[in-house]
């Protein structure tokens, strides 16, 4: 196992030790896989290469089946811990299998906008799919490992892993075919874009999170230092009247 995978294992261990998070994580996977299946069906309708189209339709069916497997296992675990019935808003949104999609291109459910395949073109679309499936394969390998003491859950991940490997391999096959057909530069560029968009996305998220965390700390410190005297004075001040005449001539040129 690579060092990065070991680190990820360490980070994700708590997901599977908490029985409630465990259920919600599986449900979240189910939701993402089901969404993915629908996305792929939408894309398949727009693919011109008949061979690729068959693979993508097959891929879509796999995703739907994965959703069912995750959902069934989650339901068993739900019943085991008497968690009650499933609710849409409960799923663990921290789990993102979003296949490298850009925020703008997905709807509230995480679906591709139907036009993305048109916008990207087949090569870039398959490159993006390839990179995303590689990530999913690595993720599921990790989760399978983390569930090694829970045979049933591990079996679900292992079953799905077989398909993920097929998804990585058929997308690779098409990328190779296009490369050999004289589109090597395009394929390389598309793969680079797909990887860098994932990398840049992760980097931006990290930047935003750490920046936000730092800002919160600074503002919190400010509150207890610089603003403290104003706060003390203000908290003892009289309340404003609750009704007043409105401004007779409101200006629209000022922001105040």
């Amino acid at each position: 196992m690579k060092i990065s995978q070991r680190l990820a294992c360490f980070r994700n261990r708590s997901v599977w030790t908490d029985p409630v998070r465990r259920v919600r994580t599986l449900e979240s996977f189910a939701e993402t896989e089901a969404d993915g299946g629908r996305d792929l069906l939408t894309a398949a309708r727009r693919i011109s290469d008949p061979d690729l189209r068959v693979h993508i339709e097959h891929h879509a069916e796999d995703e739907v089946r994965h959703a069912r497997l995750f959902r069934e296992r989650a339901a068993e675990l739900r019943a085991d811990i008497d968690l009650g019935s499933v609710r849409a808003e409960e799923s663990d949104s921290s789990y993102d299998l979003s296949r490298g999609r850009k925020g703008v291109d997905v709807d509230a459910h995480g679906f591709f906008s139907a036009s993305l395949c048109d916008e990207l073109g087949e090569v870039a679309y398959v490159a993006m799919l390839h990179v995303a499936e590689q990530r999913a394969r690595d993720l599921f390998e990790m989760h399978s490992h983390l569930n090694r003491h829970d045979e049933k859950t591990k079996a679900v991940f292992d079953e799905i892993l077989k398909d993920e490997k097929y998804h990585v391999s058929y997308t690779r096959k098409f990328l190779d075919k296009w490369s050999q057909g004289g589109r090597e530069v395009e394929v390389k560029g598309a793969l680079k874009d797909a990887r860098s968009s994932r990398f840049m996305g992760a980097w931006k998220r990290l930047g935003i999170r750490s920046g936000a965390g730092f800002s919160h700390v600074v503002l919190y410190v400010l509150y207890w230092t610089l603003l403290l005297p104003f706060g003390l004075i203000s908290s003892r001040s009289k309340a404003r009247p609750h009704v007043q005449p409105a401004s007779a001539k409101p200006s629209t040129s000022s922001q105040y």
Partner: protein
Amino acid sequence: MRVLGISAFHRDAAAALIVDGEVVAAAQEERYTRKPLDPAFPKRAIGYCLEAGGIESAELDRVVFYEKPLKKFERVLALHMKAFPRSARSFSRTLFLWLGDRLWVKNRILQELGVDGGIVHFTEHQLAVAANAYLTSPFEQAAVLTIDDAGEWATATLGEGDGRSVKLKTEVLFPHSLGLLDSAVTQYLGFVPGQEEFKREALGAFGTPRYADALRGLVGDQDGFFSLEQEPFRFAYDSERLYGPALEELLGPPRFSGDPLLHEGSDTRHADVAASLQVVLEESVLKLARALHEQVPSTHLCFAGELATNRSLNARLLDEGPFEHLWVPPSPSKAGAAIGAALYVYHQENEGRRAPSPPAALGESVDDRAEEGAQQLEADAVPAQLLQRLEQGQLVAWVRGRMEFGPHSLGNRSLLASALDAQAPRNLYGAIQIGEPFLPCRVAIPAERAAEYLDLPPSANGLLTYGLVNAKANDALREIAPAVIHADGTVWPQLVDASADPELHALLTAFGERAGHPLLVHADFAPRGSTLVRNEADAVNAFRRSNLDCLFVETRLYERS
């Protein structure tokens, strides 16, 4: 003169384009991002408005933002200081948001649109809401009432509209807010505040107002102007948790999302709380309306803001209020304020008469691009096909023309089913994964036949057309279509006028001729967790994920394979 109105950074961001006083386009950003009530800067909605108007941003004469950011920031800062030290956690969270984007609205507008800073204007929030209420109304003179959650300082205003001008006279200031009282109780009941107040209202139909006295104790009254006890609420300094332990002491333990909802059977506590708040809101608004009538003794009232989406409240205002005629714009809240802000500035700077009330369908047209699986029909075959399927009891999605601006579809992005089928409302919502059994469905009725089925509120035509008021069902409707009647005996009607929407009117009439009664259940074509569909691709995607039987997009038919 071309004026672009923008509302953003609170809820339901939107843009509207006014050309020579006429609203030519308006759209909510949520329809593009598919995030319900998306508050983000509406750059896609602006893009659409400019495209629909056939202009570039450089050709705009004014860009108007619907709030004064510095004034609002002053309020946020002052109230956080006032709540010291309870506001410690919320302070860093709120300031982070403000310093991130809300404070730099003008820069953002200049950056996104590339316009000259001199053309960017700012109206006060409640003034934009009031302008949306009055300047889109059919009245030449009217009293104007706005009741919102929060703007800069004002949460409710009383004013007057006359000719082209709107003037605010009196304002109730934050943190005294009926909108936030509604949101706090909505959150107490386990719904999303600021989004799901309609669920709180619907739930109220199942309850008895046994907590009304307790809630009345929180709402003071001074010459008709409400004030709020602050102890039970936290919204003055915390936008995440709006109520405190004092409210729990008063009403019992709160419900959290996912907990069972107590609204039927022996324990109806949640419905009772919802019903109690409804009574208190209605009473407070009636008092405010009477105070307004004393200041502006008009026969006409224009009403907007968050509370104007409350259909039971509108019905009571019509029934017991001091005004004979009531107007609520089709988009009465934050999104509609984009229209109000632009119209206000236009009429401040221009002479001439106001344009007639804009239509509700101000958004994108259906693109002319068939998706896979489409069956092309002859244009004159569509009504017959629709009719046949509705008669067969099918659940039908119908998408046509321009997208509506506002919270609901009025027929252009709609789901329809026979109202004579007792299961239709549940099936229709079930088909788009909306499972709350207490949510009501609209019933569409030809305007001229409405009196056969409803005890109509007087002078409510505009409201009934936009589905903004509840009405009492009469005996005939109770017998024919019990499934569309709420637990409190009211209905959510949408009257369809032959001149305003000839296609839907003709469909209703033909359905009536075949089935005996021209009544169709009508719901928004918006899958759970998403927004109204925008174009054909969206519609087909939503259809494929749903359990609807068929989808008509203009002259194309999609069927479940």
